[in-house]
């Protein structure tokens, strides 16, 4: 590479900027860890004098936070984690059971108006949340699935379906037709071909799709907020927010909330996404890029 005389060296500036950028990105994170292992939480980063697992112990033994305000969430924290799991698994099931046949059909069928159908599916996926959330509440109220975890899971799954159908279609496109012709020669019918030949050989795609949907159910906030109105069925995000908003809503009363407990709960909450992400990093970065590319 030619270097022109008088052109300043960008190396130094570049690394300084990069360092600042990295600090900027991780700056909110240390608080979660210094707090979760501390005896008493603080609303700023403070290195704990004593490292303890007491907060996690309290969460898993379903004990209440050490709070001086009337916050008795303790016995429900267990349920929050379970509820989140149920919600995420139902959403995952919806996408796998309904989305994968649809993706397969869209990959194999040739008909006029297929592009139109694909665009329509994408458009359904782009429906703005703000516009649909209030009527969704009314509709679900009439259907009787407000405060129903399975129903909410289905709604969240239906929200994830459009993109997952696109994703799965792209995966099925990679599986050669010859495989199915072979299966038919050996006497499989259509359903058997799908469930015993095509789906097993598209394992990576299915797994990626399943995990992405699981995460969208696990972290979902808006739909759960609209549809889960009673504290009995709160999921982890709703629970964390209901604890946290007493900090924000109460203004200066934040000293009274057990921030250590809240941080420990937060760590329990972010572990599954980070774990999935670290385990499948290459595939997921590819999919994330691919998904965007597909949206072009």
């Amino acid at each position, binding site marked *: *590479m030619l270097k022109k005389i008088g052109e300043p060296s960008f190396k130094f500036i570049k690394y300084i900027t990069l360092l600042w*950028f990295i600090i*900027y*990105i*991780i700056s*909110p994170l240390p*608080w*979660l860890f210094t707090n979760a292992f501390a005896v008493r939480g603080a*609303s*700023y980063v403070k290195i704990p004098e004593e490292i303890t697992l007491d907060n996690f112990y309290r969460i898993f033994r379903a004990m209440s936070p050490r709070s001086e305000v009337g916050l008795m969430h303790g016995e429900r924290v267990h349920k929050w984690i379970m509820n989140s799991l149920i919600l995420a698994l139902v959403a995952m099931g*919806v996408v796998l059971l309904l*989305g994968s*046949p*649809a993706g397969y059909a869209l990959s194999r*069928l040739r*008909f006029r108006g297929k592009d139109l159908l694909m*665009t329509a599916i*994408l*458009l359904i996926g*782009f*429906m*703005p*949340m*703000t*516009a*649909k*959330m*209030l*009527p*969704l509440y*009314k*509709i679900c109220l009439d259907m009787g699935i407000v405060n129903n975890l399975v129903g909410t899971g*289905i*709604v969240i*799954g*239906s*929200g994830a379906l*459009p993109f997952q159908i696109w994703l799965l279609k792209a995966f099925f496109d990679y599986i050669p037709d010859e495989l199915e012709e072979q299966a038919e020669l050996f006497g499989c019918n*259509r359903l058997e071909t799908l469930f015993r030949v095509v789906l097993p050989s598209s394992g990576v795609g299915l797994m990626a799709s399943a995990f992405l949907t699981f995460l969208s159910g696990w972290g979902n*906030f*808006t739909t759960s907020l609209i549809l889960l109105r009673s504290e009995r069925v709160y999921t982890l*995000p709703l629970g*964390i*927010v209901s604890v*946290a*908003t007493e900090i*924000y*809503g109460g203004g200066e009363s934040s000293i009274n909330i057990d921030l250590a407990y809240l941080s420990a709960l*937060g760590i329990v*909450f*972010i572990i599954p*996404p*980070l774990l999935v*992400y670290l385990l499948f*990093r*290459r595939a997921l*970065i590819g999919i994330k*890029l691919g998904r*965007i590319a597909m949206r*072009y």
Partner: protein
Amino acid sequence: MIRKLWFKIQLYRREIFLGLFLIPALIPMVVFQLYPALKAVWFSMTNIAIMGPHAVDWSFIGLKNFGYLPRDPYFPHSAKLTGYYCAASLVLRFILGFIAALFVTSSRSKWRIGLTLLFLIPYIIPGSIKPVLYLSLMDVHSGLYNRVLRALHLPPQSWTYERLTESLISLNVWAGYAFAMIILISALLSIPKEYYEIADIYGASRWTKFFRITLPLIKFPIILCLIMIFKEDIDDFTYAYVLGGGGGGDQPINFKTDILAVYAYYKAFQYGELGIGCAIGLIVGIIVFILTLAQLRMGGV
């Protein structure tokens, strides 16, 4: 006739069978995604309420809800706030995302995956925990923001109260710049290396290469990226809702974070006026829908 039909069915058996696979997936999508959006149009023209007499006995009132909105005590404020929030977030998210994308694409391939992983962390963490994380930065006495301000000999700000809108923007930028980064990385990687090599042969400077090769070639991804960021911000709910105090029944609404989505939610669930809430939601919805059409059009899907 029937024989002919039967023959046709036999002929297209495979296609029909595969077509049946589509229907189970389309049903929940239509019922829970498309139908509510259409229902919003209808509800916004009624005086439906969540509680009270109008919950059961509601009627069509035409466009009265939209006529009422400018006279609503807080709607103009909320609309202005949303504009400020969206504009600031758009600029900052795009610039930070672009810088991050340039870092990732210009680093050696050994570093690239690690750097991408690191830069994507704010995007991976579930949304509802992020406002809680930001508490540590916003703390008045020893939060990071005020520490930095004090170190620069600037007056510390009350990030949790006076400057809550700015806190919200900074949270949204931190949480969402990676979205712009993802799009721009794939755009930057699609530029052929040969262009830069030829530019090097002719002795082009760094800036010339950037402004004459890079920018023109990723013009369309940039526009697309801006559209998508704007859509995401105007449709945003979680951060503003949580930072604003969550509105548990008796809590006052903090008008510093009441962007339109949050205001529509409060209109419906706190004042019970579902019709007006739907009208606000529909305004946002129409903006997003037009932008989506533009985006699909540009993408050539």
